């Protein structure tokens, strides 16, 4: 694990000016940090080598209400890709938009002259930031380290005493009993209930990742450092 971490850190040593990188919580991350351009910050991060999360922050994204029912379209020279997207407003009034880019699009992202994002059919931002080719390549080099590093965490825990199973079954039953007296969870949005449910599930799975990215993004916009040893707490929502 230590060797992998060192290798991953080494992959980030050659970044263009204006880009920063970190590997908190076992992730690979690169970001522009605060910029004068729009979006004022851009971050790309991954914790597996299949998907890269893209996080954009600006005070000027037009009329976007916080929510996780958005659809982002990434337009590159090589084509378009669609992703569920979420929008969050932080305490400074900055709007962050997060979406997913397949990791195999990373080289095209770096090389494409046209890098635009549309959100729910509206133009949102131009991401053709200088140095993106080198930054994307650095992130690409880091990604293979993630799969190996994540393997132990993905392994199933050793079987434990049946008392744990009994306790969990009792808790689930008690929770379900009490839940009947509580309001149901948020209903899915949209007219087609089945499609909306499926979409909601996919968005929920991705929104957890994006929310963590957004917390980190907000922390950086507020003057925090990617090298902050407390970044794990930031991403988990324990620290702003």
């Amino acid at each position, binding site marked *: 694990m230590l060797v992998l971490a060192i290798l991953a850190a080494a992959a980030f040593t050659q970044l263009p000016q204006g880009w920063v990188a970190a590997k*908190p*919580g*076992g*992730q690979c991350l690169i970001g522009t940090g605060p910029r004068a351009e729009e979006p004022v910050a851009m971050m790309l991060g*991954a*914790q*597996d080598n299949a*998907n890269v999360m893209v996080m954009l922050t600006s005070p000027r994204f037009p009329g976007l209400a916080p929510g996780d029912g958005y659809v982002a379209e990434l337009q590159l020279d090589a084509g378009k890709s669609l992703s569920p997207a979420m929008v969050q407003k932080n305490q400074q009034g900055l709007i962050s938009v997060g979406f997913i880019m397949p990791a195999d699009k990373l080289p095209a992202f770096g090389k494409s002259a046209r890098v635009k994002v549309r959100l729910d059919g509206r133009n949102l931002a131009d991401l053709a930031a200088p140095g993106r080719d080198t930054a994307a390549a650095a992130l690409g080099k880091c990604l293979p380290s993630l799969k190996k590093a*994540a393997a132990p*965490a*993905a392994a*199933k*825990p050793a*079987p*434990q005493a049946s*008392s*744990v*199973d009994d*306790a*969990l*079954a*009792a*808790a*689930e*039953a*008690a*929770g*379900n*009993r*009490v*839940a*009947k*007296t*509580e*309001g149901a*969870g*948020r209903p899915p949005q949209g007219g087609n209930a089945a499609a909306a449910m499926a979409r*909601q*599930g996919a968005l*929920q*799975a991705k929104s*957890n*990742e994006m*929310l*963590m990215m957004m917390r980190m993004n907000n922390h950086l916009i507020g003057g925090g450092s990617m090298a902050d*040893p*407390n970044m*794990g*707490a*930031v*991403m*988990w*929502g*324990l*620290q*702003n």
Partner: protein
Amino acid sequence: MKNRLFACGALALATFSAAAPASAQSFSQWRVSSSGGGCSVVTTKDMQPQIPSAGFGVNSEANNQFSLLVRGNMNVTTPPKSAEVQFAGRSVKAPKIGFGKLGEPNLYGIAIYLDVEYLKDMAESPSFKIRLDGEDFATYSLAERGQVVAYIARCLREKRG
């Protein structure tokens, strides 16, 4: 202690692998923050004024233990030596406590670890009290507590496979 609390955040981020069907759960006043490495829910910002601290979460990375996470502006500025949770029918002393200063003045976080045996008590107790070092700290009445407990239990069972 500080590192222990922050470590729980880092561990919760252990992987981004898509979670099992339990991840599809959604709440109106909680946000699921589970990852492949753990099962977690935290209150949303909208709920914060309704509870006696700035934030509250339930987290578990080991499937025989869970933790109650409290953060906020507290008078507690040093790691508590003991923590007790008084549920409706019984009380339990926490075998482990995490504590960390969270940056801003007086903003602290406490993680109170309990055996999963006490997870059902969270669902069955309309409110429960946390005592630190023998003194009352806060009483919690959690919205959607049944759904939250059922979710955490289901998530842990799925991870046990």
